[in-house]
C-alpha cells in the first residue's frame, strides 16, 4: 500500500473538489432519499385512505389550520439567501487561503505530461476514450448527453412527482437518471482521477504509479473471434451485431416497460417511445462495451473502412 501515492492523488489541488464532491453527493442523496421516503409513506397512506386524502394538506411537512400558506420573501427567503452567500464566501476564503491553485512549468509542447488529463469534469469522457474511438467518446457522446438531457421533459410523460421528492411514483425515471449521473458520469470521473495513472493504465488506489509499467494486452476485434477476415464481412457482421443489439435490446426494454410501466407506455407517443428506447439503449451500451473491453479484451465490434465502433 503506497500511502504517499494515494495522498499525492487525493491532495493534488485540482483533485480536492472531487474528494469534496463525493461526501457532498452522498449527503444530498441521503437528503433526497429521506424526503422521498416521507412523501412515499404519505402517498401510501393517502392512497388507502380516500377520506384523509380529501382533507390532508398533502405534504410531509407539518401544517396546522390557521398557519399562513405563504410567507414574505422579505425577510424569510432573503435572509436565507444572504446566509448562503456568507457561508459560500467563508468557504471560498478558507479554501483559497489554505490551498493554492496549481501552476506547473510553462507550457511545453515537446514535453508530454504523463498522464495528460483533461479537466476533472471531463474525465468521464476521457475514460470513454479507452473503450471508444475519439469521434464517439469526444464528439458523439457529449452531443448525445446534451440532447438526451434536453429531451427528458418531453419524453417523461409521467405527471406524478412534479414538485416533490418521490421514488415510488417515478422509479424508472429516477433509476435511469441515477444510472446516468452516478454510475456513468461521476464514477467515471472518480476512475479517471484516482485510478488512471501514467499511460492511462489502471492503478488501484494505493498502488504506486509506475511510469515504466508495460501491460501486454492483445486486443481483439469481435469479428476476429468469429473468424471473419474480409473487410466487407467485418463491416456487415458489425452492422448486424450493433443492429441486433438495438433490436433485441429494444425488444427487451419493450417487454420490461409495458409490464412494469403500463401507464407511461400507454401515454407515450411513438416518437417519445422510440427516443426513450434509443437513448436508454445507447446509455446501457457504454457499460456493455466496457465489459467487453475489460473482461474479454475486445476492442471493436464493428469495423468499417470509415469508422470503427
Amino acid at each position: 500500500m503506497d500511502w504517499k501515492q494515494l495522498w499525492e492523488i487525493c491532495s493534488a489541488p485540482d483533485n480536492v473538489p472531487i474528494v469534496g464532491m463525493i461526501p457532498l453527493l452522498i449527503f444530498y442523496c441521503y437528503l433526497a432519499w429521506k424526503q422521498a421516503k416521507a412523501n412515499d409513506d404519505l402517498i401510501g397512506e393517502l392512497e388507502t385512505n380516500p377520506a384523509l386524502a380529501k382533507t390532508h394538506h398533502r405534504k410531509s411537512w407539518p401544517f396546522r389550520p390557521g398557519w399562513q400558506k405563504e410567507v414574505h420573501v422579505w425577510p424569510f427567503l432573503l435572509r436565507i439567501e444572504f446566509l448562503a452567500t456568507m457561508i459560500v464566501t467563508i468557504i471560498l476564503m478558507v479554501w483559497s487561503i489554505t490551498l493554492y491553485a496549481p501552476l506547473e512549468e510553462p507550457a511545453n509542447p515537446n514535453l508530454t505530461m504523463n498522464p495528460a488529463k483533461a479537466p476533472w469534469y471531463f474525465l468521464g469522457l476521457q475514460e470513454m476514450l479507452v473503450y471508444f474511438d475519439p469521434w464517439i467518446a469526444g464528439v458523439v457522446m457529449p452531443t448525445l448527453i446534451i440532447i438526451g438531457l434536453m429531451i427528458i421533459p418531453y419524453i417523461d410523460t409521467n405527471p406524478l412527482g412534479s414538485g416533490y421528492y418521490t421514488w415510488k411514483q417515478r422509479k424508472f425515471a429516477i433509476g435511469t437518471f441515477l444510472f446516468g449521473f452516478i454510475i456513468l458520469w461521476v464514477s467515471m470521473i472518480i476512475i479517471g482521477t484516482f485510478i488512471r495513472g501514467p499511460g492511462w493504465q489502471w492503478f488501484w488506489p494505493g498502488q504506486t504509479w509506475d511510469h515504466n509499467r508495460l501491460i501486454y494486452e492483445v486486443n481483439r476485434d469481435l469479428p476476429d473471434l468469429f473468424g471473419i477476415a474480409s473487410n466487407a464481412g467485418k463491416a456487415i457482421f458489425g452492422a448486424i451485431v450493433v443492429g441486433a443489439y438495438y433490436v433485441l435490446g429494444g425488444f427487451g426494454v419493450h417487454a420490461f416497460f409495458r409490464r412494469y410501466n403500463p401507464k407511461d407506455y400507454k401515454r407515450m407517443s411513438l416518437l417519445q417511445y422510440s427516443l426513450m428506447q434509443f437513448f436508454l439503449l445507447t446509455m446501457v451500451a457504454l457499460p456493455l462495451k466496457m465489459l467487453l473491453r475489460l473482461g474479454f479484451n475486445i476492442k471493436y465490434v464493428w469495423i468499417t473502412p470509415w469508422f470503427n465502433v
Partner: protein
Amino acid sequence: MAEDNSNGKNGNRVGLLQRVKAGVQEDVQSLKTDMPAKAKEQVEGLKDPTKTQVFTSIFRHKHDDTPRNRALGVLSNVFLHLHPAKINRDAVRYSYTWGMGGITFYLFIVLTFTGVLLMFYYHPTKVQAFRDVLYLEHDVPFGKLLRNMHRWAAHLMVIAVWLHMFRVFLTGSYKKPREFNWNIGVLLLVFTLLLSFTGYLLPDDQLGFWAVTVGTNMARATPMLGHEGPFGKMMGMTPYNDVRFGLLGGSIVDANALLRSYIWHCIGIPIVASVLMIVHFWRVRKDGGISGPAQVMLTAEGDKPRRQV
C-alpha cells in the same frame, strides 16, 4: 412723495448707514435665533433618516414593518424583484432546493468579480501570460488569493450546477410547464463547463496546455468536420481547415489558441451565459415560481389536470 420733500430736508428718513446697520443687526439676530432652531430640526430629522429627501429618492416606499412594505421592498427593487413578494411557506426550507441554483449564481458573480480583477494583470500573449501568473502569485497584493479564489469558485460552480440539476430532476421540476426552462438549464450547464474549460488554458502552463490539447484533439475526430473523424477526409478536411483549426486558430495549441480561449472565456461565453441566465430566472417566475414543495399527487389524479393550490 410730495409730502416727504415739503421741508426741504431729509425729514425722518433713515440714512443709508443706519439702514445697513439695522439690516446687519437683523441678520445677526436671525443667525442667533433661526440657526439653533434649524440645527435642532436637522438633528431631529436625522433621528428618522427614512424621511429625508435622499432616502425617499432612493427607496420608493416607506420602511415600515407592514406586509405592504415588505412586499414593496421586494417588488420595487430591481435586484430583488426576481423574487415574488410571497412564497410557499415550505419553499424556504433548505432541504427542498438545496439552494444550489442561487449558489451557482452567486459563484458566477464571485467569478466575474475576481475575473475582472485578474484581467487587470493578465496579457493573453504567449510570452506574457505565464509571467503574469507568476507576477500575480508573488508580487500583486492579494494576487495569490485572487487567483486561488477564481479557480476554486470555478470548480465549486461546476459542482453546484450538477447538484442543482440533480435536485431539479429528483423533484420532477422539469415537468410541465417547466420543460423549456430545463432546456435553458442544460445549455447553462454546458456553458459552465465551457467557461471552466476555456479558463484552464490561460495560465499557459503544462497542466492547461495538455488538458486543452487532450480536449481539442477530440475535435479532430468530429465526424465530417474533423480531419481524423469518420468521413472527414471525404469532406476535404485537413489539419488546417477542420473544426479543431477553427477552435484553436491554428493546428496546434499556441498563441492564437491562447487568445481565442481568453476571448471566449472573458467575453463570449459570459455574455451568452448571462443572457441565458436572464431567460432562466425570468422563466422560473413565469412558470409559476419554484416548483415546490408541492402537494403530493395520488395515482388516480395522475391523468386528471393538475389541482390548483
